[in-house]
Protein backbone atom coordinates (compact mmCIF):
# COMPACT_ATOMS: atom_id res chain seq x y z
CA UNK A 1 0.00 0.00 0.00
CA UNK A 2 1.21 3.47 -0.87
CA UNK A 3 0.00 6.78 0.58
CA UNK A 4 0.69 10.35 -0.52
CA UNK A 5 0.83 12.42 2.68
CA UNK A 6 -0.15 16.07 2.36
CA UNK A 7 1.84 18.14 4.83
CA UNK A 8 0.97 21.76 5.66
CA UNK A 9 2.97 24.92 5.81
CA UNK A 10 1.70 28.30 6.95
CA UNK A 11 3.30 31.68 7.15
CA UNK A 12 6.89 30.44 7.10
CA UNK A 13 6.30 27.41 9.32
CA UNK A 14 5.81 23.69 8.79
CA UNK A 15 2.74 22.66 10.74
CA UNK A 16 3.23 19.64 12.97
CA UNK A 17 0.24 17.68 11.63
CA UNK A 18 2.43 15.71 9.23
CA UNK A 19 3.75 13.67 12.16
CA UNK A 20 0.20 12.38 12.68
CA UNK A 21 -0.01 11.54 8.98
CA UNK A 22 3.18 9.52 9.49
CA UNK A 23 1.56 7.83 12.50
CA UNK A 24 -1.43 6.94 10.35
CA UNK A 25 0.81 5.55 7.57
CA UNK A 26 2.54 3.38 10.15
CA UNK A 27 -0.83 2.05 11.33
CA UNK A 28 -1.61 1.21 7.70
CA UNK A 29 1.81 -0.35 7.17
CA UNK A 30 2.15 1.83 4.11
CA UNK A 31 4.94 3.14 1.98
CA UNK A 32 4.78 6.95 1.71
CA UNK A 33 5.76 10.02 -0.23
CA UNK A 34 4.98 13.54 0.93
CA UNK A 35 3.74 16.74 -0.69
CA UNK A 36 3.99 20.23 0.73
CA UNK A 37 3.62 23.71 -0.66
CA UNK A 38 6.27 25.37 1.48
CA UNK A 39 9.87 26.42 1.35
CA UNK A 40 13.19 24.61 1.28
CA UNK A 41 14.21 26.79 4.23
CA UNK A 42 11.94 24.73 6.51
CA UNK A 43 11.56 21.10 5.61
CA UNK A 44 9.69 18.41 7.49
CA UNK A 45 11.76 15.86 9.37
CA UNK A 46 11.01 13.10 6.90
CA UNK A 47 13.25 10.44 5.58
CA UNK A 48 11.55 9.95 2.23
CA UNK A 49 10.60 11.58 -1.02
CA UNK A 50 9.13 15.05 -0.73
CA UNK A 51 7.41 16.85 -3.57
CA UNK A 52 8.00 20.49 -2.73
CA UNK A 53 6.15 23.38 -4.32
CA UNK A 54 7.33 26.89 -3.61
CA UNK A 55 4.63 28.57 -1.52
CA UNK A 56 6.03 31.98 -2.40
CA UNK A 57 5.23 31.29 -6.05
CA UNK A 58 2.17 29.06 -6.00
CA UNK A 59 0.58 30.51 -2.89
CA UNK A 60 0.26 28.99 0.57
CA UNK A 61 -3.46 28.94 0.06
CA UNK A 62 -4.39 28.35 -3.53
CA UNK A 63 -6.86 25.54 -3.94
CA UNK A 64 -6.79 25.38 -7.73
CA UNK A 65 -3.00 25.22 -7.96
CA UNK A 66 -2.49 22.94 -4.98
CA UNK A 67 -5.13 20.58 -6.31
CA UNK A 68 -3.41 20.40 -9.68
CA UNK A 69 0.02 19.75 -8.19
CA UNK A 70 -1.32 17.00 -5.94
CA UNK A 71 -3.09 15.43 -8.91
CA UNK A 72 0.22 15.54 -10.81
CA UNK A 73 1.94 13.77 -7.90
CA UNK A 74 -0.88 11.22 -7.80
CA UNK A 75 -0.54 10.56 -11.53
CA UNK A 76 3.16 9.96 -11.08
CA UNK A 77 3.09 7.93 -7.88
CA UNK A 78 -0.15 5.98 -8.43
CA UNK A 79 -0.86 5.73 -4.69
CA UNK A 80 -3.71 3.79 -3.13
CA UNK A 81 -4.53 6.69 -0.89
CA UNK A 82 -4.01 10.41 -0.34
CA UNK A 83 -4.07 11.50 3.30
CA UNK A 84 -4.71 15.02 4.62
CA UNK A 85 -5.15 16.39 8.12
CA UNK A 86 -8.77 17.28 8.84
CA UNK A 87 -7.85 20.94 9.04
CA UNK A 88 -8.94 24.10 7.26
CA UNK A 89 -6.39 23.19 4.57
CA UNK A 90 -7.31 19.51 4.41
CA UNK A 91 -11.07 19.75 4.31
CA UNK A 92 -10.86 22.47 1.67
CA UNK A 93 -8.49 20.60 -0.59
CA UNK A 94 -9.40 16.94 -0.07
CA UNK A 95 -12.78 17.02 -1.88
CA UNK A 96 -11.16 18.81 -4.83
CA UNK A 97 -8.42 16.19 -5.06
CA UNK A 98 -10.89 13.32 -4.54
CA UNK A 99 -13.03 14.72 -7.35
CA UNK A 100 -10.03 14.92 -9.67
CA UNK A 101 -9.03 11.36 -8.79
CA UNK A 102 -12.59 10.01 -9.10
CA UNK A 103 -11.99 8.64 -5.62
CA UNK A 104 -14.14 8.19 -2.54
CA UNK A 105 -13.30 10.46 0.37
CA UNK A 106 -13.65 9.63 4.03
CA UNK A 107 -13.52 12.72 6.24
CA UNK A 108 -12.34 13.00 9.82
CA UNK A 109 -11.04 9.47 10.21
CA UNK A 110 -10.56 8.67 13.90
CA UNK A 111 -9.53 5.04 13.72
CA UNK A 112 -8.77 2.16 11.36
CA UNK A 113 -10.62 -1.01 12.26
CA UNK A 114 -9.89 -4.19 10.31
CA UNK A 115 -8.64 -2.04 7.46
CA UNK A 116 -11.83 0.07 7.32
CA UNK A 117 -12.00 3.77 8.12
CA UNK A 118 -14.01 4.87 11.15
CA UNK A 119 -15.44 8.40 11.36
CA UNK A 120 -17.59 10.15 13.94
CA UNK A 121 -21.24 11.07 13.37
CA UNK A 122 -23.76 13.25 15.19
CA UNK A 123 -21.32 15.50 17.01
CA UNK A 124 -19.19 12.52 18.06
CA UNK A 125 -22.12 10.75 19.72
CA UNK A 126 -21.87 7.91 17.21
CA UNK A 127 -19.21 6.25 15.08
CA UNK A 128 -19.53 4.85 11.58
CA UNK A 129 -17.43 2.47 9.58
CA UNK A 130 -17.08 3.37 5.94
CA UNK A 131 -16.46 1.08 3.00
CA UNK A 132 -15.07 2.60 -0.18
CA UNK A 133 -15.95 1.31 -3.63
CA UNK A 134 -13.19 3.06 -5.53
CA UNK A 135 -9.66 1.77 -6.05
CA UNK A 136 -8.03 4.93 -4.76
CA UNK A 137 -9.29 6.80 -1.72
CA UNK A 138 -8.76 10.15 -0.06
CA UNK A 139 -8.90 10.54 3.70
CA UNK A 140 -8.69 13.42 6.16
CA UNK A 141 -7.56 12.53 9.68
CA UNK A 142 -8.97 13.97 12.84
CA UNK A 143 -6.36 15.91 14.79
CA UNK A 144 -5.00 13.83 17.64
CA UNK A 145 -6.56 10.56 16.45
CA UNK A 146 -3.26 9.00 15.36
CA UNK A 147 -0.22 9.16 17.58
CA UNK A 148 2.46 11.32 15.97
CA UNK A 149 5.59 9.65 14.64
CA UNK A 150 8.67 11.81 14.39
CA UNK A 151 9.93 11.18 10.88
CA UNK A 152 13.53 12.17 11.40
CA UNK A 153 16.07 12.59 8.65
CA UNK A 154 16.10 14.87 5.65
CA UNK A 155 13.76 14.37 2.75
CA UNK A 156 14.83 13.73 -0.79
CA UNK A 157 13.32 16.85 -2.36
CA UNK A 158 11.84 17.02 -5.81
CA UNK A 159 10.69 20.53 -6.69
CA UNK A 160 7.44 20.84 -8.56
CA UNK A 161 5.45 23.75 -9.95
CA UNK A 162 2.34 24.52 -11.88
CA UNK A 163 1.35 27.35 -14.18
CA UNK A 164 -1.69 29.50 -13.77
CA UNK A 165 -3.42 31.82 -11.38
CA UNK A 166 -6.15 30.04 -9.48
CA UNK A 167 -9.58 31.57 -9.02
CA UNK A 168 -9.50 32.10 -5.27
CA UNK A 169 -7.07 34.94 -4.55
CA UNK A 170 -5.36 34.92 -1.16
CA UNK A 171 -5.09 38.42 0.29
CA UNK A 172 -3.33 37.72 3.56
CA UNK A 173 -3.73 36.40 7.09
CA UNK A 174 -5.49 38.04 9.93
CA UNK A 175 -4.32 37.17 13.43
CA UNK A 176 -6.66 36.76 16.36
CA UNK A 177 -7.04 39.87 18.46
CA UNK A 178 -4.54 39.77 21.26
CA UNK A 179 -5.08 41.01 24.76
CA UNK A 180 -7.62 40.25 27.42
CA UNK A 181 -7.34 36.99 29.30
CA UNK A 182 -4.65 34.43 28.75
CA UNK A 183 -6.43 31.17 29.45
CA UNK A 184 -3.30 29.19 28.69
CA UNK A 185 -1.88 30.32 32.06
CA UNK A 186 -4.99 29.69 34.16
CA UNK A 187 -4.81 26.82 36.67
CA UNK A 188 -8.57 26.50 36.89
CA UNK A 189 -10.94 27.09 34.01
CA UNK A 190 -14.70 26.93 34.27
CA UNK A 191 -16.22 26.91 30.79
CA UNK A 192 -19.71 27.78 29.70
CA UNK A 193 -21.35 25.86 26.88
CA UNK A 194 -24.60 26.35 25.05
CA UNK A 195 -26.27 24.54 27.95
CA UNK A 196 -26.10 27.76 29.99
CA UNK A 197 -29.14 28.76 27.93
CA UNK A 198 -28.91 32.52 28.05
CA UNK A 199 -26.29 35.26 28.34
CA UNK A 200 -27.34 36.21 31.89
CA UNK A 201 -26.02 32.86 33.07
CA UNK A 202 -22.43 33.68 32.14
CA UNK A 203 -22.29 35.49 35.49
CA UNK A 204 -22.95 32.19 37.26
CA UNK A 205 -20.00 30.58 35.49
CA UNK A 206 -17.65 33.47 36.14
CA UNK A 207 -18.66 33.49 39.81
CA UNK A 208 -17.70 29.83 40.13
CA UNK A 209 -14.43 30.48 38.31
CA UNK A 210 -13.66 33.29 40.71
CA UNK A 211 -14.53 31.19 43.75
CA UNK A 212 -12.10 28.54 42.50
CA UNK A 213 -9.42 31.15 41.84
CA UNK A 214 -9.51 30.68 38.07
CA UNK A 215 -10.80 32.08 34.84
CA UNK A 216 -13.87 31.35 32.81
CA UNK A 217 -13.88 30.12 29.24
CA UNK A 218 -16.55 29.16 26.73
CA UNK A 219 -17.42 26.89 23.87
CA UNK A 220 -17.88 28.28 20.43
CA UNK A 221 -21.68 28.76 20.27
CA UNK A 222 -21.45 30.91 23.39
CA UNK A 223 -18.81 33.04 21.69
CA UNK A 224 -20.64 33.13 18.35
CA UNK A 225 -23.73 34.40 20.16
CA UNK A 226 -21.51 37.14 21.58
CA UNK A 227 -22.26 36.19 25.17
CA UNK A 228 -18.53 35.89 25.83
CA UNK A 229 -15.60 37.48 23.99
CA UNK A 230 -13.61 35.42 21.50
CA UNK A 231 -10.38 35.26 23.47
CA UNK A 232 -12.15 33.05 25.99
CA UNK A 233 -13.06 30.41 23.42
CA UNK A 234 -11.51 27.02 24.02
CA UNK A 235 -10.99 24.70 21.07
CA UNK A 236 -9.53 24.26 17.61
CA UNK A 237 -10.42 27.74 16.51
CA UNK A 238 -9.93 29.21 19.96
CA UNK A 239 -7.36 28.62 22.67
CA UNK A 240 -5.56 25.47 23.70
CA UNK A 241 -5.50 25.21 27.47
CA UNK A 242 -3.93 22.91 30.06
CA UNK A 243 -5.25 23.83 33.51
CA UNK A 244 -5.10 21.68 36.64
CA UNK A 245 -8.89 21.68 36.67
CA UNK A 246 -11.23 22.13 33.73
CA UNK A 247 -14.92 22.35 34.57
CA UNK A 248 -17.12 22.07 31.48
CA UNK A 249 -20.65 23.30 32.15
CA UNK A 250 -23.30 22.51 29.54
CA UNK A 251 -20.74 21.51 26.92
CA UNK A 252 -21.46 18.45 24.78
CA UNK A 253 -17.84 17.59 24.01
CA UNK A 254 -17.61 18.04 20.25
CA UNK A 255 -14.19 17.11 18.95
CA UNK A 256 -13.30 20.71 18.14
CA UNK A 257 -13.87 21.66 21.76
CA UNK A 258 -12.03 18.64 23.14
CA UNK A 259 -9.04 19.47 20.96
CA UNK A 260 -8.55 22.62 23.02
CA UNK A 261 -8.91 21.19 26.54
CA UNK A 262 -7.72 17.57 26.37
CA UNK A 263 -4.46 18.43 28.07
CA UNK A 264 -6.26 19.50 31.24
CA UNK A 265 -5.08 17.52 34.27
CA UNK A 266 -8.49 16.92 35.81
CA UNK A 267 -11.78 17.34 33.96
CA UNK A 268 -15.20 17.74 35.52
CA UNK A 269 -18.26 17.95 33.30
CA UNK A 270 -21.71 19.10 34.31
CA UNK A 271 -24.34 17.93 31.87
CA UNK A 272 -27.98 16.87 31.96
CA UNK A 273 -27.20 14.24 29.32
CA UNK A 274 -25.47 11.20 30.75
CA UNK A 275 -24.42 10.16 27.23
CA UNK A 276 -22.88 13.48 26.20
CA UNK A 277 -19.49 12.78 24.55
CA UNK A 278 -17.77 15.03 27.12
CA UNK A 279 -18.23 12.04 29.45
CA UNK A 280 -15.47 10.31 27.47
CA UNK A 281 -12.81 12.72 28.67
CA UNK A 282 -14.25 13.70 32.03
CA UNK A 283 -12.75 12.33 35.25
CA UNK A 284 -16.05 13.18 36.90
CA UNK A 285 -19.34 13.61 35.08
CA UNK A 286 -21.96 15.34 37.17
CA UNK A 287 -25.34 14.49 35.69
CA UNK A 288 -27.28 17.57 36.75
CA UNK A 289 -28.84 20.80 35.65
CA UNK A 290 -26.02 23.31 35.79
CA UNK A 291 -28.46 26.06 36.77
CA UNK A 292 -28.86 24.29 40.10
CA UNK A 293 -25.48 22.68 40.47
CA UNK A 294 -23.21 25.62 39.64
CA UNK A 295 -24.65 28.05 42.24
CA UNK A 296 -24.69 25.26 44.83
CA UNK A 297 -21.03 24.48 44.19
CA UNK A 298 -20.06 28.15 44.17
CA UNK A 299 -21.68 28.70 47.54
CA UNK A 300 -19.96 25.71 49.10
CA UNK A 301 -16.56 26.60 47.66
CA UNK A 302 -16.92 30.17 48.95
CA UNK A 303 -17.71 28.80 52.39
CA UNK A 304 -14.51 26.70 52.54
Amino acid at each position, binding site marked *: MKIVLIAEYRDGQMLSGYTELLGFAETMGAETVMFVAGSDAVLPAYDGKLYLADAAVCGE*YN*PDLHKQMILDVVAKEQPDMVAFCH*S*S*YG*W*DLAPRVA*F*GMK*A*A*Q*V*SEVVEVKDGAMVA*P*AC*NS*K*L*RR*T*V*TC*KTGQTVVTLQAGAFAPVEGGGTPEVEKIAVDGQG*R*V*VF*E*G*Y*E*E*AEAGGVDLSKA*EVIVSAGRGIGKPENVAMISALAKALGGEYGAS*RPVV*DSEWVEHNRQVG*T*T*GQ*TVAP*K*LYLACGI*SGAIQHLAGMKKSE*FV*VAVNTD*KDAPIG*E*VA*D*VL*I*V*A*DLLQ*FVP*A*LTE*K*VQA*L
Partner: protein
Amino acid sequence: MNILVCIKQVPDMESKFKVAANGTWYDNQDLAWRMNEYDEYAVEQAVQLKEQVKDADLTVLCIGSDKVKETMKKALAMGCDRGAHIDDADSWAKEPFEIAGIISEYAKDKSFDVIFTGMQSQDRGSGQVGVLVAEMLGIASVSTIVDFAFDDGTIKAKRELEGGIKANVTVQVPALVTCQLGLNTPRYPTLPNIMKAKKKELLTIPVADVLKVDARMETSAMYFPEKKGGGLVLEGEAGDLADKLISILKEKTSVLK
Protein backbone atom coordinates in the same frame (compact mmCIF):
# COMPACT_ATOMS: atom_id res chain seq x y z
CA MET B 1 -28.74 37.81 -9.60
CA ASN B 2 -29.53 34.15 -9.21
CA ILE B 3 -28.73 32.65 -5.80
CA LEU B 4 -29.00 29.10 -4.48
CA VAL B 5 -28.77 27.97 -0.89
CA CYS B 6 -28.62 24.28 0.01
CA ILE B 7 -29.89 23.08 3.35
CA LYS B 8 -30.26 19.79 5.17
CA GLN B 9 -32.69 18.65 7.81
CA VAL B 10 -30.91 16.96 10.73
CA PRO B 11 -31.91 15.66 14.13
CA ASP B 12 -31.38 17.90 17.13
CA MET B 13 -27.98 16.81 18.39
CA GLU B 14 -29.21 16.57 21.95
CA SER B 15 -31.60 13.80 20.90
CA LYS B 16 -31.29 10.31 22.35
CA PHE B 17 -29.94 8.46 19.35
CA LYS B 18 -30.55 4.79 18.66
CA VAL B 19 -28.90 2.70 15.98
CA ALA B 20 -31.40 1.66 13.31
CA ALA B 21 -32.32 -2.00 12.81
CA ASN B 22 -30.18 -2.15 9.64
CA GLY B 23 -27.15 -1.29 11.79
CA THR B 24 -25.81 1.26 9.32
CA TRP B 25 -27.47 4.50 10.42
CA TYR B 26 -29.29 6.03 13.36
CA ASP B 27 -32.96 5.32 13.87
CA ASN B 28 -35.04 8.07 12.25
CA GLN B 29 -37.96 7.63 14.63
CA ASP B 30 -38.70 9.78 17.68
CA LEU B 31 -36.23 12.52 16.86
CA ALA B 32 -36.75 16.26 16.82
CA TRP B 33 -35.71 17.60 13.40
CA ARG B 34 -34.33 21.01 12.56
CA MET B 35 -32.26 22.89 10.02
CA ASN B 36 -28.58 21.93 10.06
CA GLU B 37 -26.97 24.63 12.18
CA TYR B 38 -24.32 25.54 9.58
CA ASP B 39 -27.04 25.94 6.95
CA GLU B 40 -28.87 28.53 9.04
CA TYR B 41 -25.87 30.79 8.56
CA ALA B 42 -25.91 29.98 4.83
CA VAL B 43 -29.58 30.92 4.50
CA GLU B 44 -29.08 34.14 6.45
CA GLN B 45 -26.11 35.15 4.27
CA ALA B 46 -28.03 34.32 1.08
CA VAL B 47 -30.97 36.44 2.24
CA GLN B 48 -28.65 39.31 3.16
CA LEU B 49 -27.06 39.13 -0.29
CA LYS B 50 -30.49 39.18 -1.93
CA GLU B 51 -31.46 42.22 0.17
CA GLN B 52 -28.21 43.95 -0.78
CA VAL B 53 -28.38 43.45 -4.54
CA LYS B 54 -32.18 43.96 -4.70
CA ASP B 55 -32.73 42.38 -8.10
CA ALA B 56 -32.19 38.78 -7.05
CA ASP B 57 -33.93 35.46 -6.98
CA LEU B 58 -33.12 33.08 -4.15
CA THR B 59 -33.88 29.36 -4.29
CA VAL B 60 -33.55 27.06 -1.31
CA LEU B 61 -32.85 23.41 -2.11
CA CYS B 62 -33.30 20.48 0.21
CA ILE B 63 -33.09 16.73 -0.39
CA GLY B 64 -35.20 14.36 1.68
CA SER B 65 -38.61 12.94 2.37
CA ASP B 66 -41.77 15.04 2.59
CA LYS B 67 -40.80 15.83 6.16
CA VAL B 68 -38.01 18.20 5.07
CA LYS B 69 -40.60 20.65 3.72
CA GLU B 70 -41.02 21.86 7.31
CA THR B 71 -37.39 22.94 7.40
CA MET B 72 -37.66 24.43 3.91
CA LYS B 73 -40.58 26.54 5.10
CA LYS B 74 -38.36 28.06 7.73
CA ALA B 75 -35.87 29.05 5.01
CA LEU B 76 -38.72 30.51 2.93
CA ALA B 77 -39.93 32.43 5.98
CA MET B 78 -36.39 33.74 6.50
CA GLY B 79 -36.56 35.24 3.00
CA CYS B 80 -35.85 32.68 0.28
CA ASP B 81 -38.10 33.18 -2.76
CA ARG B 82 -38.76 29.62 -3.80
CA GLY B 83 -38.07 26.08 -2.77
CA ALA B 84 -36.76 23.12 -4.73
CA HIS B 85 -37.52 19.94 -2.83
CA ILE B 86 -35.70 16.90 -4.16
CA ASP B 87 -37.97 14.13 -3.02
CA ASP B 88 -35.89 11.27 -1.69
CA ALA B 89 -36.97 9.16 1.25
CA ASP B 90 -33.55 7.48 1.20
CA SER B 91 -31.44 10.63 1.26
CA TRP B 92 -30.13 9.68 4.71
CA ALA B 93 -28.19 6.84 3.10
CA LYS B 94 -26.66 8.92 0.31
CA GLU B 95 -23.01 9.76 0.63
CA PRO B 96 -21.63 13.25 -0.11
CA PHE B 97 -20.69 12.46 -3.72
CA GLU B 98 -24.27 11.46 -4.54
CA ILE B 99 -25.76 14.45 -2.70
CA ALA B 100 -23.40 16.80 -4.55
CA GLY B 101 -24.26 15.01 -7.79
CA ILE B 102 -27.96 15.65 -7.24
CA ILE B 103 -27.44 19.32 -6.40
CA SER B 104 -25.15 19.99 -9.35
CA GLU B 105 -27.48 18.18 -11.73
CA TYR B 106 -30.29 20.45 -10.52
CA ALA B 107 -28.10 23.58 -10.72
CA LYS B 108 -26.19 22.97 -13.93
CA ASP B 109 -28.50 24.81 -16.35
CA LYS B 110 -29.71 27.52 -13.97
CA SER B 111 -26.68 29.83 -13.96
CA PHE B 112 -26.51 30.53 -10.26
CA ASP B 113 -24.15 33.40 -9.51
CA VAL B 114 -23.59 32.47 -5.89
CA ILE B 115 -24.28 29.16 -4.15
CA PHE B 116 -24.28 28.90 -0.35
CA THR B 117 -24.02 25.70 1.67
CA GLY B 118 -23.14 24.91 5.27
CA MET B 119 -19.54 23.79 5.84
CA GLN B 120 -20.74 20.38 7.01
CA SER B 121 -23.83 18.64 8.27
CA GLN B 122 -24.14 17.99 11.98
CA ASP B 123 -25.04 14.34 11.54
CA ARG B 124 -22.75 12.99 8.79
CA GLY B 125 -20.14 15.70 9.20
CA SER B 126 -18.21 14.96 6.01
CA GLY B 127 -17.75 18.58 4.96
CA GLN B 128 -17.56 17.63 1.29
CA VAL B 129 -20.86 18.49 -0.37
CA GLY B 130 -20.33 22.20 -0.99
CA VAL B 131 -16.85 21.90 -2.43
CA LEU B 132 -17.88 18.90 -4.55
CA VAL B 133 -20.87 20.77 -6.01
CA ALA B 134 -18.50 23.54 -7.12
CA GLU B 135 -16.08 21.01 -8.62
CA MET B 136 -18.91 19.34 -10.51
CA LEU B 137 -20.18 22.67 -11.82
CA GLY B 138 -16.66 23.84 -12.62
CA ILE B 139 -16.95 26.98 -10.49
CA ALA B 140 -14.69 28.33 -7.75
CA SER B 141 -15.38 27.64 -4.09
CA VAL B 142 -14.28 28.90 -0.71
CA SER B 143 -14.88 26.81 2.40
CA THR B 144 -15.48 27.65 6.06
CA ILE B 145 -16.23 31.33 5.72
CA VAL B 146 -16.82 33.51 8.77
CA ASP B 147 -17.23 36.78 6.88
CA PHE B 148 -18.81 37.57 3.51
CA ALA B 149 -19.05 40.74 1.45
CA PHE B 150 -20.14 41.19 -2.13
CA ASP B 151 -19.36 44.07 -4.45
CA ASP B 152 -19.57 44.30 -8.21
CA GLY B 153 -19.15 40.62 -8.98
CA THR B 154 -16.45 40.03 -6.38
CA ILE B 155 -16.87 38.11 -3.16
CA LYS B 156 -14.56 39.05 -0.31
CA ALA B 157 -14.56 36.38 2.35
CA LYS B 158 -12.68 35.38 5.45
CA ARG B 159 -11.86 31.70 5.81
CA GLU B 160 -11.44 30.46 9.33
CA LEU B 161 -8.18 28.65 9.94
CA GLU B 162 -7.00 27.12 13.21
CA GLY B 163 -6.11 28.99 16.39
CA GLY B 164 -8.05 32.18 15.70
CA ILE B 165 -6.26 32.94 12.41
CA LYS B 166 -8.25 33.88 9.34
CA ALA B 167 -7.37 34.06 5.66
CA ASN B 168 -8.74 36.90 3.58
CA VAL B 169 -9.63 35.82 0.06
CA THR B 170 -11.41 37.22 -2.97
CA VAL B 171 -13.14 35.36 -5.74
CA GLN B 172 -15.23 36.33 -8.75
CA VAL B 173 -18.72 34.99 -9.20
CA PRO B 174 -19.97 32.45 -10.10
CA ALA B 175 -18.73 30.88 -6.92
CA LEU B 176 -19.80 28.68 -4.05
CA VAL B 177 -19.09 29.35 -0.38
CA THR B 178 -19.51 26.99 2.58
CA CYS B 179 -20.58 28.69 5.78
CA GLN B 180 -19.16 28.31 9.25
CA LEU B 181 -20.78 29.02 12.63
CA GLY B 182 -20.66 32.68 13.64
CA LEU B 183 -20.75 34.01 10.05
CA ASN B 184 -23.75 36.19 10.93
CA THR B 185 -26.75 36.11 13.23
CA PRO B 186 -29.47 34.01 11.61
CA ARG B 187 -32.83 35.81 11.83
CA TYR B 188 -35.93 34.38 13.38
CA PRO B 189 -38.78 34.27 10.89
CA THR B 190 -41.50 36.76 11.84
CA LEU B 191 -45.14 35.69 11.92
CA PRO B 192 -46.09 37.72 8.80
CA ASN B 193 -43.14 36.15 6.97
CA ILE B 194 -44.20 32.69 8.09
CA MET B 195 -47.64 33.41 6.64
CA LYS B 196 -46.13 34.72 3.39
CA ALA B 197 -43.89 31.69 3.11
CA LYS B 198 -46.93 29.44 2.88
CA LYS B 199 -47.75 30.98 -0.49
CA LYS B 200 -44.25 30.66 -1.94
CA GLU B 201 -43.52 28.16 -4.67
CA LEU B 202 -42.23 24.82 -3.40
CA LEU B 203 -41.46 22.63 -6.37
CA THR B 204 -40.98 18.91 -5.80
CA ILE B 205 -38.61 16.99 -8.06
CA PRO B 206 -38.34 13.19 -7.87
CA VAL B 207 -34.78 12.26 -7.00
CA ALA B 208 -34.61 9.86 -9.95
CA ASP B 209 -34.74 12.87 -12.29
CA VAL B 210 -31.53 14.36 -10.87
CA LEU B 211 -29.50 11.43 -9.55
CA LYS B 212 -26.99 10.67 -12.29
CA VAL B 213 -23.96 9.48 -10.32
CA ASP B 214 -23.13 6.27 -8.49
CA ALA B 215 -22.13 6.00 -4.86
CA ARG B 216 -18.41 5.81 -4.19
CA MET B 217 -18.67 4.54 -0.65
CA GLU B 218 -21.15 3.45 1.96
CA THR B 219 -21.54 3.46 5.69
CA SER B 220 -21.27 -0.21 6.57
CA ALA B 221 -21.87 0.06 10.31
CA MET B 222 -22.96 2.62 12.87
CA TYR B 223 -22.46 2.20 16.58
CA PHE B 224 -21.85 4.00 19.84
CA PRO B 225 -18.22 4.55 20.73
CA GLU B 226 -16.98 2.18 23.38
CA LYS B 227 -17.03 3.78 26.78
CA LYS B 228 -13.42 4.03 27.83
CA GLY B 229 -14.59 3.99 31.41
CA GLY B 230 -12.61 5.28 34.33
CA GLY B 231 -14.62 8.44 34.69
CA LEU B 232 -16.88 8.70 37.69
CA VAL B 233 -20.56 9.44 37.01
CA LEU B 234 -22.42 11.18 39.80
CA GLU B 235 -26.14 11.75 40.01
CA GLY B 236 -28.34 13.17 42.72
CA GLU B 237 -29.34 16.38 44.43
CA ALA B 238 -27.30 19.50 43.56
CA GLY B 239 -26.11 20.25 47.11
CA ASP B 240 -24.96 16.66 47.73
CA LEU B 241 -23.23 16.58 44.37
CA ALA B 242 -21.39 19.78 45.24
CA ASP B 243 -20.19 18.27 48.53
CA LYS B 244 -19.05 15.11 46.77
CA LEU B 245 -17.22 17.05 44.10
CA ILE B 246 -15.46 19.22 46.67
CA SER B 247 -14.11 16.18 48.47
CA ILE B 248 -12.98 14.65 45.18
CA LEU B 249 -11.23 17.87 44.18
CA LYS B 250 -9.52 18.03 47.58
CA GLU B 251 -8.31 14.48 47.19
CA LYS B 252 -7.38 14.39 43.51
CA THR B 253 -6.29 17.94 42.71
CA SER B 254 -4.39 20.73 44.35
CA VAL B 255 -6.85 23.45 43.47
CA LEU B 256 -8.77 23.53 46.76
CA LYS B 257 -5.77 23.34 49.04
